[in-house]
């Protein structure tokens, strides 16, 4: 664990008395290594270490009898501060029904998360409508319908021959007519480098003016988490992030990368395959998981 590695760095300090900047550098190399092992983006890790170094080379740390603990405390505080302390919530103010769009790479967990959100929002007193805008993936509409049935939530769908933009637009009307308070729009998985598919998202957004656009990303995403999030944010505009498969053992460094580079707040964590498995996130817990 990182704690042990930092203790190892400082174990000879007793004989040296006060620490020097090189000792701190060595400790920060261990921290950087831990971040990279956790899939934190290379540049994000480098910038993070620079920020931490300023605080970690203060007299308070250099003269401390427990420098490992001091460095760890500073790293942890910086991590929590960067991740952001706002608990996850959906903005449904301003229009009825409030459209919430889910976007992201293929297989990230959008369709499952759509159903999870519907269940969570219903428990909070909202009336969610699931909207099937993935007309590409085989049986995608059937998947959302099956999940909707499991939680007793209606699914607005038009099969696979209408355009996702039209389905989204008509779902707003449908939601309003049937008294829904939130429309959860499930979209097809797509690469952020696929211009035509990214343009489809821009068109859907223009058609329904969503109150939330949530990027759904897998916790085990590697270095490209930054490019993915940046492209989705720049082209479509993101209001939040859902990190899925946090029930696994991926360290989840992608969360730090995405947050540090785009400023998009982490809203929810996918904690399993079951529809109940959606949790609000705690920055301090995520921080210690990333550090390992």
């Amino acid at each position, binding site marked *: 664990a990182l704690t042990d590695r930092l203790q190892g760095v400082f174990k000879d300090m007793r004989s040296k008395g006060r620490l020097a900047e090189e000792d701190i550098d060595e400790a920060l190399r261990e921290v950087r290594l831990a971040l990279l092992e956790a*899939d934190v*983006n290379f540049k994000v890790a480098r910038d993070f270490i620079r920020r931490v170094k300023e605080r970690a080379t203060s007299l308070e740390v250099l003269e401390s009898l427990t420098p490992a603990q001091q460095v760890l405390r500073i790293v942890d505080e910086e991590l929590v501060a960067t991740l952001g302390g706002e608990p996850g919530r959906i903005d449904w103010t301003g229009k009825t029904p409030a459209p919430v769009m889910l976007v992201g*790479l*293929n297989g990230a967990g959008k369709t499952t998360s759509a159903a999870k959100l519907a269940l969570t929002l219903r428990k909070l007193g909202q009336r969610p409508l699931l909207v099937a805008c993935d007309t590409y993936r085989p*049986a995608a509409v*059937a998947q959302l319908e*099956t999940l909707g049935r499991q939680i007793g939530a209606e699914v607005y769908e038009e099969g696979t021959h209408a355009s996702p933009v039209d389905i989204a637009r008509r779902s707003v009307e449908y939601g309003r007519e049937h008294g829904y308070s939130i429309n959860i729009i499930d979209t097809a998985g797509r690469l952020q480098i696929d211009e035509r598919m990214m343009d489809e998202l821009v068109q859907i957004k223009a058609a329904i003016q969503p109150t939330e656009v949530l990027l759904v990303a897998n916790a085990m995403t590697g270095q490209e988490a930054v490019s993915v999030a940046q492209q989705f944010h720049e082209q479509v505009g993101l209001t939040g992030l859902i990190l899925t498969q946090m029930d696994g*053992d991926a360290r989840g460094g992608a969360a730090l990368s995405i947050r540090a580079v785009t400023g998009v707040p982490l809203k929810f964590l996918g904690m399993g395959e079951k529809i109940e498995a959606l949790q609000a996130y705690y920055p301090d817990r995520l921080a210690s998981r990333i550090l390992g």
Partner: protein
Amino acid sequence: FQARRELDAAFWDELEERLIQADLGAHTTADLVDTLRETHDKRRFDSPEQAEAALRQEMMRLLGGGTVGLNLPLPLAVILVVGVNGVGKTTSIAKLAKFLAQSGRKPLLVAGDTFRAAAIDQLKVWGERVAVPVVAQGPGSDPSAVVFDGIKAARARGADVLIVDTAGRLHTKINLMEELKKVQRIVQRQIPDAPHETLLVLDAVTGQNALVQAKSFTQAVGVTGLVLAKLDSSSKGGVVFSIAQELSLPIKFVGTGERVDDFAPFDAGEFAGALFA
């Protein structure tokens, strides 16, 4: 990288950055860069291009070791496809079925994911698209029972390769890994050396956790080969180098898109070259 005129400190720094950003991981990157620096000390590369060529050679050596084809003996070969959630198993199975059919085999698909919503429907749609029959039971049925049916159907219909789709499962879920072992045992009981191939599908977008996945699945069911899906994404899939170093698992195929023809046998040279593109 190509802009560097000499192998100075900046060259080595940029190389490290490049490899880490390709998901090779800090340790594997350090190993490869150290080896390259040792070579440079001994025989002096004249240019960054030469160093890059040597690195590409080393990468190809690491990845190119395993047998390229699949071991699919007659009369009936069984391929078990496994992996964590959402990596591309079902889609890769459809692609593999068409690939095998085009090379003269008679595949049959088994809808072994009886858990996830519309998983059976998804494989059935793919089966129709590639004109390959699918054996299935209802949702919630026992995957081992469906596999058992699949073997019976294959023998009855003269199919010579059975591809078994399984539900995505995190390697950390002991009960789900046990379920997978049970499926494998059912297959072994019916056909002595089966499954002849157990392919682990990895999502190229995955970071260092892919190594953990490869280790866990290998330990549980003995993986014989990898399928690297979603290589059309902006990710480079560099984690396969640590998998090659630690487990020597051959990469059999790559998935390069969502269409059925976006699939090809793995080419180490092409893969290593793409890292430097």
